[in-house]
């Protein structure tokens, strides 16, 4: 499943994921944003893994924020934008 969100005033945020037993799996964040250190990408992917497929945006954004240490730099990307992309990936079939 695939979701994309162009963050207003930011960059393109893309999520690819699967759902197994009602939970998010194989979550992969990608896009043309800026994120440092680059290891934070895996931290974010892991933070989203295992969430119930009906988790709302606020819960998804909160877990991304909590997983990241204070020295992580985001430019054109935010926990909220990531959460929107996740919800879009999950809603793709409903939208079609």
């Amino acid at each position, binding site marked *: 499943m695939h979701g*994309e969100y162009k963050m207003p005033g930011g960059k393109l945020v893309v999520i690819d994921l699967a759902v197994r037993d009602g939970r998010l799996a194989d979550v992969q964040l*990608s896009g043309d944003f*800026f994120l440092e250190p680059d290891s934070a*990408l895996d931290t974010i992917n892991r933070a989203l893994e295992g969430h119930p497929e009906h988790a709302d945006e606020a819960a998804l954004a909160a877990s991304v924020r909590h997983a990241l240490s204070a020295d992580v730099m985001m430019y054109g990307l935010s926990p909220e934008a990531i959460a929107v992309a996740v919800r879009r990936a999950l809603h793709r079939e409903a939208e079609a």
Partner: protein
Amino acid sequence: MMRTDWRDHDWQLIHTAPQSPTLHMALDDVLTHEVGAGRRAPTLRIWEWASPAVVIGRFQSLRNEVDSEAARRHGIEVVRRVSGGGAMFIEPGNTITYSIYAPQSLVKGLSFQEAYAFFDAWVLQALGELGIKAWYQPLNDITSEGGKIAGAAQVHRGGAVLHHVTMAYDIDAAKMLDVLRIGREKLSDKGTVSAAKRVDPLRSQTGLPREAVIERMVATFRRLHGLSDGSLRADELVQAEALGHTKFSSPAWIGDVA
């Protein structure tokens, strides 16, 4: 750490014969480290490309961004750079690419948005001298009335910041769209439907040869900030070639975000 000014540094220019896309990726990595470690003076490097390439950003999905079959058909190598940002379609002679390796003190206290504009203010001035009214469009674009001219990216490493930019000089838009997958979502707030129309290259805007545009840019940098003609050290090149082989040409790196 005190904020420094351009003129506090002894800027060096590197502009060599064409090099492979992989070596360019590795040189950015090595030279950023060298400036951060204080072994190299702050440097402006102008790139010359030995072969065509698609350069994807650090966090872009290879599969989502590039039609690998089309890239193979056109003989275009796909490489991944160390910085974030978007994919660039490169053919030798069609782009002007440069890197600035600077101490972080140069942008101390600036927001990201300010730092991007700060590093390219000299380019806007050079473009103005060529008759192009260009400005910075946050987050990381140089644009003009005719359309986008360039995209920038930054990465910070141990006391140094790398700021690199690719400017469109000329463009084979049909080939670019064949190789890059440019999604509709990406264009949703740009106000245009056609991806090809988003870029307005320097060739049509200046009517000048690429070399003349580069000459003007270098002269402007030299006048504003000071610039000595420098060169790559042999040990830097050896290190970059090794990194090119072990990291930047490896499927693990190129496909790191599948």
